C-alpha cells in the first residue's frame, strides 16, 4: 500500500537530493556532455564568487524584512479575526485570499501598480516627490527590494494569521475568565494570557516561514528577475541564473546545496537553542 508513496519519495525526492549533491562535485560541460570530477572546487568557487557577499546580503534583507512584515501583520490580523464581532468571518475570508492567489497574479498586480507611467502607486509616489517623473520603484535598487518584500508580505501573512488564529482558538476560555476576574486590562490579557499560549506555535512558525522565505524563488523572479543590476538577486535567483542562464549545472547545484546546508545548520542550531531554553 505504501509502496507507490515510497517510490515517489525515493525516485523524485531522495534521488534528486542525492543527484544534487553528486552534481555539485562535478564540472559539467554541456556542449560535449562531459562530466569532470572537481572535488570541492565548485564549493570553493561559491565562496570566492564576487557575487557572494551581495547575494548573501540580499538574501538576509529579503528574509528578515519579509519575516518581520508577515509576523507583525499576521499576528495583528489574527487578533482581529479572533474577536467575536459581527462581520469578522467575512474579514477572515477576504484576508485569506492571498493564500491561494497565484504568484503570477501577485507579481503582475505589483508591476501594474508600480509601472512608471500608468501605475497608481508610482503616481502617488511621484506626486509626493519621492520618485522622479515616470519613474518606477522597481527601477532603483533600494525601492525594488522594498517592493518585492511588501509583495511577499502581502502574499504570505495570511499563513501566519491563520496559524496564530488556530492557536488562539485553542486557548481555553477559562484563562481569559480568570484574568478578567483578576481585573486584567485588555493589554494585560494579551500580554499574560494570549502571548504565552502562542510561544509554541511561534517557534515552529518562524522556522517554517524562514525556510520558505529564504528559498522562495517565484515572486522575485517574476517581479524583477533579480534586478535592477542584481539589487534583488537573492540565493535562489542565483541558483536559477547559473543553471538556466549559464547552464553551469555543477556550480548551480553547489550553490543550492550550500543554501540547503546553511538552512539545515541554522535549523539544528535553532532547535538546540529552543530546547535548552525550554529545559531551563
Amino acid at each position, binding site marked *: 500500500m505504501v509502496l507507490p508513496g515510497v517510490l515517489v519519495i525515493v525516485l523524485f525526492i531522495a534521488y534528486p537530493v542525492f543527484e544534487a549533491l553528486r552534481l555539485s562535485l562535478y564540472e559539467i560541460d554541456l556542449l560535449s556532455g562531459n562530466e569532470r570530477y572537481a572535488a570541492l572546487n565548485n564549493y570553493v568557487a561559491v565562496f570566492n564568487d564576487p557575487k557572494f557577499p551581495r547575494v548573501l546580503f540580499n538574501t538576509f534583507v529579503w528574509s528578515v524584512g519579509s519575516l518581520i512584515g508577515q509576523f507583525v501583520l499576521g499576528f495583528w490580523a489574527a487578533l482581529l479575526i479572533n474577536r467575536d464581532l459581527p462581520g469578522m468571518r467575512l474579514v477572515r*475570508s477576504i484576508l485569506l485570499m492571498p493564500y491561494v492567489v497565484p504568484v*503570477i497574479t501577485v507579481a503582475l498586480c*505589483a508591476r501594474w501598480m508600480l509601472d512608471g507611467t500608468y501605475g497608481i502607486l508610482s503616481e502617488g509616489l511621484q506626486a509626493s516627490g519621492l520618485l522622479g517623473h515616470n519613474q518606477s520603484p522597481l527601477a532603483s535598487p533600494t525601492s525594488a527590494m522594498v517592493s518585492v518584500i511588501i509583495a511577499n508580505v502581502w502574499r504570505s501573512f495570511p499563513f501566519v494569521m491563520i496559524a496564530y488564529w488556530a492557536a488562539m482558538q485553542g486557548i481555553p476560555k477559562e484563562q481569559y475568565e480568570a484574568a478578567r476576574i483578576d481585573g486584567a486590562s485588555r493589554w494585560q490579557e494579551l500580554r499574560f494570557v494570549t502571548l504565552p499560549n502562542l510561544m509554541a506555535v511561534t517557534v515552529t512558525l518562524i522556522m517554517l516561514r524562514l525556510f520558505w522565505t529564504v528559498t522562495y524563488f517565484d515572486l522575485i523572479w517574476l517581479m524583477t528577475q533579480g534586478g535592477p543590476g542584481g539589487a534583488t538577486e537573492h540565493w535562489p535567483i542565483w541558483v536559477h541564473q547559473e543553471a538556466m542562464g549559464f547552464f553551469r549545472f555543477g556550480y548551480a547545484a553547489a550553490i543550492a546545496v550550500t543554501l540547503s546546508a546553511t538552512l539545515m545548520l541554522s535549523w539544528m542550531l535553532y532547535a538546540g537553542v529552543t530546547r535548552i531554553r525550554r529545559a531551563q
Partner: protein
Amino acid sequence: MKSRSRFDVVAHYGAALLLVGFVAFPLAWMAIASVTAAGQLFTSPPRLFPSEFTLDWYRSVWSASEAPRFFMNSLVIALATTVACVIIGILSAYATTRFEFPGKQLFLVGALASYVFPAILLFLPVYLILTGLGLTNTLVGIVVAHIVVSFPFAVWMLRSYLLAIPRELDEAAWVDGASYLRTLISVVLPVCLPGVFSTAIFIFVLSWNEFLFASVIAESSRNKTITVGIAEFITAFDVRWGEIMALGTIATVPVVILFISVQRYFLKGVLEGAVKG
C-alpha cells in the same frame, strides 16, 4: 463581563477595514483594469474611477493569443496531479496511520523533510531526470514535477484526517472479513471524504499556481501552463497591460472560487494542524 467601549469596537473595525483594503485593493485594481477601455487605461496620471468599460481585453486574449491552450494545459495538469497525489497519498496515509512496518519512521521523516525542502534544490536534478526520461517539454513531465511538489503535503494533510478516525472502525470491518483496500474504500473513505476533498482542492491550487518547475519543463508554447504563459506575456517587449490584467483575472478567479467553496474544511484542517504556505 466588562462592557466594550465604543471606541474600542470602532478601532477594531477600522483596523479590519485597513487590512481588507491592503489585501483587496491590488486584486480589485487588476479586475478593474481588465475591463477598462484603452483610452482610460493608458493615462498618466492613472484614473481612479474609469467610466468607459470594455470586454475587448478578454476577447483579445481569448481569440488572438494562446491563452485558451494555456488554460486547458493548467486544468489538465492540475487535475492529473490532484488525482495522482490523492490516490498515492491516501494509500500512504492509510498505511502509516494503521500499520507498523519497517521503515515507516524513515518514510514519514522523508515526507516531512521534503515538505520543507527547497524546490530550488530539487528543480535542477528533477529537470535532469526528466530530460533523461525524455519527459521535458511534455505535460506528463510537468505533472510528475507537480507530484514531487505536492505529494509530501498530501500525505501529511491526509494523515491528519485519517488519524482522527478511530481504528476500531477499521477493525470491525477486518473482523467481518474485509480486505484492507476494501476497508479503506468502503469504510474509511466515506467518513473522511470532506478531508480528502479539501486536500484535493489544495493540491489543485498548488499545481495551478506553480511556476518554477513548469517554466523550466515547458519549452514550447504548446505545453505552457497559464502561469508560465502570463509570465512570458509580461516580460515580452511591449507590455500589453490590458491583456495581461485580463489573463491575470482569468488565472485567479477559478482558484479563489474553489478556495472559498471549501474554506470550511480548510479551516477545520488548520485547527487540526495541517497547512502549507
